[in-house]
């Protein structure tokens, strides 16, 4: 899997996109991260990461879902791609494998 390295925050965002299953956009992703990881993130950072992920082909996006709260502006909704899914599970596998290699500490 050359060239598909995932940064820690990128992974977090990608996971959120997968969790939200079609309802992922800037605000909702920020919400998920704040709830789950309990850390404060700025919305502009999330946007920047989303574009980066899209460039790498891990997510795809389409416009839709304007609400009154948004001043009639469309959302850009993100969906995880097969490649993104694969990258995530690779990262998970890698972790599991390495955890398995860790000697169990005694005492």
């Amino acid at each position, binding site marked *: 899997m050359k060239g598909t390295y995932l940064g820690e925050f990128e992974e977090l965002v990608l996971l959120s996109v997968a969790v939200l299953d079609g309802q992922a956009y800037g605000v909702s992703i920020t919400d998920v991260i704040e709830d789950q990881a309990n850390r404060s993130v*700025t919305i502009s950072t999330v946007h920047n990461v989303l574009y980066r992920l899209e460039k790498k082909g891990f997510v795809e996006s389409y416009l839709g879902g304007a609400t009154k*709260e948004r001043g009639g502006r469309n*959302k850009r909704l993100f969906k995880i791609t097969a490649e993104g899914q694969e990258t995530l599970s690779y990262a998970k596998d890698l972790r599991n494998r390495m955890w398995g290699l860790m000697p169990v500490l005694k005492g």
Partner: protein
Amino acid sequence: MYQKNTPPEWIDALLEWYCSSKYIDEVQGDLHEWFSRRVEHQGAKKARLFYLLDVVRFCRSYRLKSYDEFTQNSNNAAMLKNYLKTSWRALSKNKAFTIINILGLTIGMVAFMMISIYVENEYDYDQFHTQKDNIYRLKQNRYNKGELTTEWAAGCTGIGFALINNFPEVKEFVRITKSSAMIAYEDKVFKEDHAYYTNSAFFKVFSIPIIQGDTSVLSKAYNMMISESTAKKYFGDEDPVGKTIRHNGARDYNIAGVYQDIPTNSHMSADMLFSFETFVDLSGPNSRTTWDWDGFYTYLLLEEGTDYKDFEVKIPEFVQKEKGEELKQYNADIEFLLQPLTSIHLNSDYMMEFKPNGNGEATSFLFIVAIFIIIIAWVNYVNLSTAKSVERAREVGVRKVMGSQKGQLIKQFLVESSLVNFIAINIAVLIVFLALPAFSHLSGRALVLDFTSQTFLLMTFGLFVIGSLLSGAYPAFVLSGFVPVSILSGKLSASTKGGLLRKGLVTFQFIASLVLIVGTYVVYSQLDYMRSQDLGVDISQTLVVRGPGAVDSLYSNQLNIFKDQLEQESDILSVAASTSVPGAQPQWNAGGIRLLSKGEDEANQYRVIGMDAEFMKSYDLDLIDGRIFDEKFSTEENNVIFNESAMKLIGFSDTQQLLNKDIYFWGDTFNIVGVVKDYHQESLKKSFEPLIFRYIPNSQNFYSVKVQSSDLSYTIDKIEQEYKAAFTGNPFDFFFLDDHFNEQYKAEMQFGKVFGIFASLAILIACLGLFGLTSYMTVLRTKEIGVRKVLGATLLSVMTLLSKDFAKLMLLAILIATPIAWYVMTNWIAGFAYQISLTWWVFVIPSMLLIVILLVTVSIQTLKAGLSNPVDALKHE
């Protein structure tokens, strides 16, 4: 209407302005949603603030509109492009005019920036101390018989100690006193001019970082701290801590630590700090507490939140309680005032300052000059632009007919002035950068141009924006206000628009220039006057050698050998030893001196110079009565000589009454044997002081060597050899007395030079403006001149015609400027004891000079017009 839960519109507008349409939906939508969330959690106020932050954060390059997108949607960008293009065309069409314009602005900006940098540096003194707002220096005033006699920067030794023990407001006190130190380490020997004794609180109060060692050592005798560069001077790369140096050839001091050099922008300078305990050990325990010994700087660190004025008013009562009785006995008084640390550099010029301080008034004055110069430069731009307005009028007319609105025209001319200002500021920054080292040298300050500093950005940006608006606004409004029909039908003439304003501005320029020239002229005249007066003492051909710091019981012998050896030289006329030489206030300041027959309450304070028999002869002092010192009298050391001022102070007007009287001087009795005429011991800034001369043949401070030599370097070599032979182990250090004496005028000379430079710049700018203005006026009247010449006008009458208007303004300017200059310079000159009188020619000569300069400027143009062939002028139509 309740609007608080929507984001501020202007921030949205900012977002919409920069953000590409590709991203605007998602970004703005998300931000709005986030905003309403924030309103719920943090309140509307914070949410609005964060909204701005977010909008700024979102500004990434990929989200920006492309150039096409910008220009497509907004007419403004396209128009801006067009304005720039037309401005450029207008500027390049008349190159000479544009160059004059830009040059004038550039010079003005350079002057303004240089002065601002200088002024900022002056105000920056001592700002680096973190506790600067709570540090104060005690200034001490001594009164004698109700009269203020001395104002000390360094007061008595005991006061700090007394205050900290009696007032809870005083947190720490620092006591500093000078040590005349000759320091030796192995074979290295230097005379240290900035060595002091101080207590350990020094480093608690002042923010001078310690590099090595521990400050507590300053509470033990014979320990010392040394500055980084001084350590390098003595020890090179060796570790100085733990080493011993020899002080004045007598005692060993242990180096316990190294501190960072005190920055140059401090009123203080200290290369070595010896523990105050050393001083106490050398001079007795009394030196810790007495109020009778002056020469000690006292700094107080007050508790946070203390109002120093409130504290200051409590001191007199305390002084009365402690020393009231004693002071009354001598009919004397003592007063302590607090000087805030950061105000010392610009506002303190008292006895025994660390180094000559700056002058607050002169600094403010210089800043006013800077503002004047930049205004003159802007005035030029306004003048030239309005004068040219006729030429631009047709363009404006056509634009208006084509549907251009007033606002757009104003914008166009503002763009033009911005362009000119932008070019000017860039050149100006470059010139300042290149010229600053020279200016630093001239002003005696270490000035640097810090491109990243806030001041620099503020200054350049401010000059650019204010300049563009101020100089662009008037032409913009005048030109845009033209009625198209009257322009296009050719009814507009040059003189109708902005005539009065232009005249007013030109007059203002003349006034400012004239005041500056008179100022410069007066400064130089005063300096010249002071330096050319007869001092009453002959300081020419005199070389002064500083006496040895380290001496022993053989000193008298050594001195005699040194004198004898030198006097054998044919090119050395005399050698005189003394405690002071002309050119500075004598350091020996003695109070309590009175006639033996009078009571203690009639005692006075005098300055004392100790000298050998040679001194008065060598310096050619005028004896009025009695005799000068002579070594053949065995009791000569019990005799004194007075100067006239001292005679008056002690209460006589006739020398015969004074002679042979006995005086009481510090427990001994002296007989007055002579009176000499007052001479200028110090610069002519000060009046004569009462001096008493004592016969001290082995005075140790200075040896004045009168030379008459064709080969000075040989003579100096000779003196050095003899000095080193006589006083082994002491460094040879000498100066020329006339240079030393003129050092006293250094501040005035610097002021004069700086003033002169900026006055010249102001005049140069005014001339440039005038040159441009006349050239333009002449062009406008080409046809008129042609007709006049055809009808028989002479060259002279044409030139008179063209210069007449300016001549009138010039006369008006002279009338207004003279009283202003008179007022300002009378105030300046009042600071000198001996002053030139401001007679009529002080004003007439600069006025004539200005008239000549301006007439020459005008004539270059008018001459050209007058000489031109009328046929050329008339054939154009």
